[in-house]
Structures are given as C-alpha cells and as structure tokens.
C-alpha cells in the first residue's frame, strides 16, 4: 500500500510541472477579469505540507470549483484565500494571494478587513443559535457599526431574497436561527455572508450536509449569485462541480494537477490522473 502511494506521488510531481504551463495559458485566455489570484501558494501544518506551490486564478462573475479526493488540500487552499489559517496555531502560509492585484498576506493588511471582502460559507450550517434570524443576517453589518434600522431591514430582506430564503422566513424573522431546518440554516449562512456584500464568495462543501432538494436549491442559488460575485466552491460531488462551475481545478496530494474550463476538463481532461479521477478509477 505504501509503495503504491509513493509511486503515485512520483507520477504526480512529474505532472505538476507541465501543469503550471497549462495554468498560465488558461489565465491569459480568460474572457472574464481575474478577481483573485494565488501565486506559488504553500500551506504547511507544522512540517507537513498540505498545499504545494499552487498558482490559480479566480475569475470575476464565474464559478471556480475545486475538486479532488479527500485530504488533497482543497479546503486548506480555500481557507488560505481569506486568511482563515491565521487562526490555526501551527499553520503557516507562504506565497501570494492577490485580491484585485493586492497581496492579502502583506503584513500591512488587516485580516479582519480581508474577511469582510471575502465571504465564506462552511460545510456545516453555522447560524448563531441564540440570535434571531434577522440578527443572524445582519450580524456582519452590526460588526461594522451599522445601526440604522431601516437600512438593516432592507439589507436583511435583500440578502434573504438572494439566498432564496425570504419567502420561507419572512413571517418569523425574530425566531432563533437554530429553529430552522438544516437546508434553511445553510441558506441563512449564505444570506449572512451575502449581507456584508463581499467581493468574492468562498464555499466549502456547502451542500455536503444537506438533502438533495436543499442541495439543488443552493446550486440554483450559486447560478444566480455568480452574476455579481466571483465564487470559489470546494465540492466532493463531481456532478455538482460539473453543473455549477465554469472553471475547475483538480487537486491531488496538495498539488494542482489541472486547471481549466469545466466543460473542457470534463470532456477532454489533459492529464491521465484527472481522467482517472473523473471516471471514478480512484478517489
């Protein structure tokens, strides 16, 4: 078993060098402006390297999906995009993450302001259970000191409508966020992330704990949201990645094996490893 893994690794390191070339050509052909970009991004937990030297563009008004087997570093990569690793004791990040050309890891940049610009939705729905639905949605606004009731109401309605939840909860905005069903809670988490009007939206397996109906609602939602945002979504569900994304990055053992337009990658993957994963030969 161990020797098998080692063999895989050797193959992969071989592949990833070509891969950077693929990467750059794609970036230059992109019809949409690049909103975010990573350059030689590395993330280490202690001495273990989880994300290795990844350069990847995130296009505006497009959905970028990150796929790959468990433990391949996609979530770690995603969390590096809004500096969530600052909070993990032994994680260290090197390389650059550019938002509109500015490196967010520049020591002068305050991570708090970065997280206000780059919203995040997590795998598990995370409403604040003691807060009302209304207060959950506007929690981010209250943090920046907005107290104007009319404005908060307006933003709350807009965010809930965007998250396709408004009609279901409009009569009980004051009941606690924890009283909603799982799917509703996840849409509430999305509404909360949208309320602060981020520039980029990161989603970490947003449907993995939901039933198929709620999942499809959230997929529709992603389609709607990409008109206004750059979206990066991590998913284990290959069909989902195919349905919602315009670009796909395939991760394996911490490296980016292939990045390109989803359609092209799904019909004609450039690398054998990608093809094997997409056809279910491993992973």
């Amino acid at each position: 078993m161990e020797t098998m893994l080692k063999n895989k690794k050797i193959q992969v390191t071989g592949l990833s060098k070509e891969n950077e070339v693929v990467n750059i050509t794609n970036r230059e052909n992109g019809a949409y402006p690049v909103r975010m970009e990573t350059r030689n991004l590395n993330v280490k937990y202690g001495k273990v390297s989880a994300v290795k030297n990844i350069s990847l563009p995130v296009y505006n008004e497009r959905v970028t999906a990150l796929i790959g087997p468990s433990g391949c570093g996609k979530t770690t990569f995603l969390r590096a995009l809004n500096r969530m690793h600052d909070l993990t004791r032994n994680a260290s990040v090197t390389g650059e993450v550019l938002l509109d050309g500015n490196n967010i890891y520049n020591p002068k940049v305050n991570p708090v302001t970065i997280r206000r610009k780059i919203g995040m939705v997590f795998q598990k729905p995370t409403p604040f259970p003691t807060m009302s639905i209304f207060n959950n949605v506007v929690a981010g606004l209250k943090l920046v000191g907005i107290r104007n009731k009319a404005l908060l109401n307006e933003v709350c309605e807009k965010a809930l409508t965007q998250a396709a939840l408004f009609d279901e909860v409009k009569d009980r905005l004051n009941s606690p966020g924890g009283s909603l069903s799982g799917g509703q809670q996840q849409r509430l988490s999305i509404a909360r992330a949208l309320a602060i009007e981020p520039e980029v939206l990161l989603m970490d397996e947003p449907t993995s704990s939901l039933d198929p109906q709620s999942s499809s609602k959230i997929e529709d939602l992603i389609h709607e949201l990409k008109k206004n945002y750059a979206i990066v979504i991590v998913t284990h569900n290959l069909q989902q990645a195919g349905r919602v994304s315009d670009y796909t990055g395939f991760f394996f053992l911490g490296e980016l094996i292939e990045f390109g337009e989803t359609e092209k990658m799904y019909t004609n993957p450039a690398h054998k490893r990608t093809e094997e994963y997409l056809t279910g030969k491993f992973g």
Partner: protein
Amino acid sequence: MKKKEEQINNVLKKPVGIIYRWLGDRIFLSAAVILGLSIIFLSLSMAWVLYGEGSLSFGEFGFWGFLRGTTWDPGIQLIFGALPFIFGTIVTSVAALLIAFFPAMAIGIFIAEYAPRWLGNIIENLVHLIAAIPSVVIGIWGIFVFAPWMREKVYLPVFNWAAEHYPSLLPVLGNPMGYGMASAIIILALMIIPYTTALTRDAIRQVPKEQREAAWALGATRWEVIRMAVIPYARGGILAGAILSFGRAIGETMAVAMLIGNKNNFPFSIMGPAATMPSVIINEFREAVGSLHLSSLMAIGFVLFVISLIVNLLAAYITRKLSISGGQVA
C-alpha cells in the same frame, strides 16, 4: 483465508459461559440499581434525620417562626431564630458571587481564548492550586495577614473618614476591627473564583470551532468573536458555573467562621461581625448542652440542606434551559 473464516466460526459457535450471559447481566444490573437507589435513600434519610432532630425547635417556635426569628440567645432566654444566619449566608454568598463573577469570567476567557497555551496552563494550574488550599489554611492566613491588613489600610481609614464627614453612616459600617462581614465576603470571593473560572473555561472550550470560524469569516475581531459567537453559546455553562459557585459559597464553613466575627443577633453591619448558617453550627455545636439549642442547630442544618438543594436544582434547570446542542436552542 478459509482458515481464518473457520477460526472465526469456531469462536462464534463456542458456547459462552452462563456468567457472561444471563447471570452476569443480572448481577451487574442489580448492583447498579442498588447503588443508584442508595444515593436517593441516603439524601432522603439525611434530610429526614435533620428535620427529625430539628423538629423540637420547629415545634417550639413554629417552622416559619423559627425562620423569621431575629433573636438567637442560647444563654438566658433560650430563644432561637434563624433569620440572622439565613440573612448572613445569603448576603455573604451573593456579595462574594458578585465580586468574583466578572473577574473569574475574565480569567476563564483569557485562559481559553487569549493566552498562549503555556501561559494558559500555568494560570490554570495556579487557579486549581487556590481551589486545592484547605479552607482552614485560608482562614489562618485571613486571621493573621488579611484581616489586620484590611483593618489598617481599608476599614480604619474608611471608618475615620465616615466619622468626620457622615457620622450617620457609622452604624451601617460597623466596628472596623477587621473580623466581620466584609472580610468574610472578600475571602469567600477569592475562594469561589477558581470554580467559576474552571467552569467558564470548560463552557467556552465546548463552543464548536465552526461557530468561531463563522464569526471570524464575517470579519469579526477577536473580542467580537467572543461576544458574538462564544459567550452566547457558552452562556448556559457559564451561568450554571456561577450558581454552583454560589452553592459552594453558601456551604463554605471554616474560613468564614474564622473571619466573620461570629455575632449572632441582628442588626449586622458591613465591616462589623456577623454570622452565617455554617459558621453558627460549627461554633456552637460543642457547647450546645440544652436539647432545644441542639435541635435549633439541627434545624439550621436542615434549612441549609434545603437551600443548597434548591441552588443545585436551579443550576441544573438553567443549564438545561440555556444549553445549545447541535445548533438548536433547546
């Protein structure tokens, strides 16, 4: 491969001794039931014995009469009323909790959220150390160090200042000899800080990582994360911890008895001597010769038992009412 299957089958088919099936189950079940029920029996019999022993006093003064009586005179009139001690217990405990709660919560938050792990561990161990000091040792320290220091540096200056400017305050302030209600309250606060701290820290550690991250991802600063995600989620545990500490303060005997000055009758003053239910029991038990006196002490024990029970039930109720499981408000 086949051999392995055979082996497994052999193990499965092997007859199991009766001790592992029917009999073993029964023995374990009955032991568990007996031990479990004995706890109920033990506490009920304790309450019953205390009430029985105290019934002479309850009969003499009436149940409510005993609770409301303000005179405690075991020497001449043989009148026993528990109100001074109930009052003394409640006031010292509430005041100690009020003093201890916010510092203890702050220490708990610091250990759990802010401190680097090594510093948090050191503080945590020191806090545990305070909890482990026998209360009689704290009492001795109080008598020889704390009370004289407080008398010189705090009580006397305050008393002199009041005597000069507001003489009408003097009866409220009381005798500044150092052994009295204020000293007992401060020592009690010191003694319950470790409990509140430990329980606050436990409650905060149980807040799921996801809740914190959700707040971080909204662009919250460290304090905002604590205020928005951590404290609301941990509120049940924190409050229950405070009430359990209050329960400890109510029952705390030795250090309080050594520092409170032990004055049995109303009115109490802030700095002057007073008494609590545990302190009067421990001070008078050996000298209680009259059966009515002894019975009255037992009756106070019964009241203390009931109050502690209520406080514990209240803590359990609050924990259940405010605790949050799986993102749902129960």
